[in-house]
């Protein structure tokens, strides 16, 4: 007699937990574990940690520590509601150093982002769908976005923002430009990273969902939103054929007419909302 809840647990672990454990096995000298106290002190102070030149050796590990903690919370919740089996032992005990550090960091991070922790009692019937959404959200673009907005140093952030401003500038000058795959891989995080389907709703993935919200307290999201707006403005003239181009230009012209508020200031995010409206695209936020 099979135990499908045990299979579900193992399948979840193989997709979510095992790649993280493999990462730490393959990177035994990862600095994230050693620098976790520094990380927590920074975020408790409401600041972004600054690991200087070491950030590239620290940030991937820190991100995985947070994801590992999230994965363990999914398992805990899944066992509570009977979706996962309590009969089998989850991989790697949550008491280990990395696991404990992750849970602490996740709690602090969620507090900083204004979410509730520990989590509320989410509807058990929606658990499979929520879990599936949380797994689907783990794309390269999303992970890059989370690492950049939450974890990298200010200097590194500035470099990446400058790349996006360069893109806006190139698009303004040459709307028919074709960009290299390498460059597009580099900036893809700003295109699809903030476009998560996840909503904060009392789930272990709330820290990822909250990081996407247009939270005015989170300066990097504001700055990113402004640069994305620059890119959208620059993209107005795109259109390889005249019909598509005219439609896009018309939509942007309409957009400009509705963009200014009473004081004539620009509303970040308005371009996108208006485009969604004009093209009848459901709002995903």
């Amino acid at each position, binding site marked *: *007699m*099979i*135990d*499908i809840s*045990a*299979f579900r*647990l*193992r*399948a979840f*672990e*193989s997709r979510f937990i095992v790649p993280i454990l493999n990462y730490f096995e393959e990177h035994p000298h990862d600095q994230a574990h050693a620098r976790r106290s520094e990380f927590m002190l920074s975020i408790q102070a409401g600041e972004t940690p600054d690991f200087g030149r070491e950030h590239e050796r620290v940030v991937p590990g820190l991100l995985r520590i947070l994801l590992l903690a999230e994965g363990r919370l999914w398992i805990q919740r899944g066992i509570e509601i009977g979706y996962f089996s309590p009969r*089998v032992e989850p*991989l790697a005990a949550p008491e280990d150093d990395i696991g404990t550090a992750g849970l602490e960091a996740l709690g602090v991070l969620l507090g900083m982002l204004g979410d509730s922790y520990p989590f509320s009692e989410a509807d058990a019937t929606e658990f499979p769908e929520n879990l599936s959404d949380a797994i689907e959200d783990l794309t390269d673009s999303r992970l890059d976005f989370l690492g950049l907005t939450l974890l990298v140093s200010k200097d590194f952030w500035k470099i990446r923002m400058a790349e996006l401003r360069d893109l806006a500038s190139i698009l303004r000058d040459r709307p028919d*430009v*074709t*960009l290299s*795959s390498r460059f*597009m891989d580099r900036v*893809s995080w700003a*295109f*699809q990273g903030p*476009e998560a389907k996840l909503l904060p709703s009392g789930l272990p993935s709330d820290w990822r969902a909250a990081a996407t919200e247009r939270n005015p307290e989170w300066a990097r999201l504001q700055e990113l939103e402004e640069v*994305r707006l620059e*890119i*959208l403005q620059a*993209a107005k003239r*795109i*259109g*390889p*054929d005249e*019909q*598509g*181009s005219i*439609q*896009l230009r018309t939509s942007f012209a309409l957009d400009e007419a509705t963009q200014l508020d009473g004081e004539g200031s620009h509303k970040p995010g308005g371009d*996108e909302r208006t*485009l*969604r409206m004009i*093209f*009848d*695209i*459901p709002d*995903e936020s």
Partner: protein
Amino acid sequence: MLFVGYDSTRENITGVADSLRHNLPRFYPSPLVDAMIVSEEPARDDIYAPYQELIIIGHSLGGLIVRRALADCAQLWLNEPKHAHSQRPSILDAKVRLFSPASAGFRAAGLLGTVKASGIWPALEMYLRRSSAFTDLQPGSSTLSDTRNRTQLLATQPGLEALRAELLWANPDDVVLPERYDTDAYWDSISGQTHRSVCKPNTNYPAPWLFARAGRYR
């Protein structure tokens, strides 16, 4: 159920179709045992028993990819010198059910069609990369016309019934052109659903389950 995902901003339509064609036989008719048992926990009582039926479901761009994979598979089989005596590829056992397939391309040319299909930011990324999903879905592209011509040429031949898809269109669908192939086996539309929602079942909208199972929803 086996879900096949791909990155439409980066991957090539023909490449994904080839990958589907090459990899599906790993899972059908005999289950891939490594996928049926994870850390000693099996997915079902008999993880070795072969499947009795293959149903391929596609939505939007996925529909075009499925059509392409099947047409290429059929053509390659017919190209074999004694194909009548060689075993037919297992993927050609399939019943094919497509939700609003993009096999005639986007309604709107240029970036606009991609924006409607994928959203603003994925569309902009596809445009800047000149990805296959952007260029190949422009109305009249060679990928669209080649796939259609090959499928229509092959679908009436014995043993290639898999190329005769069953279709369910959203009504209204303002993203893709709702044009069927002459050789498609069945088509219908469902009101009150959009291009994006047509394939997503819920308690109040069971039609996707019914269509996937039987090729009809009413």
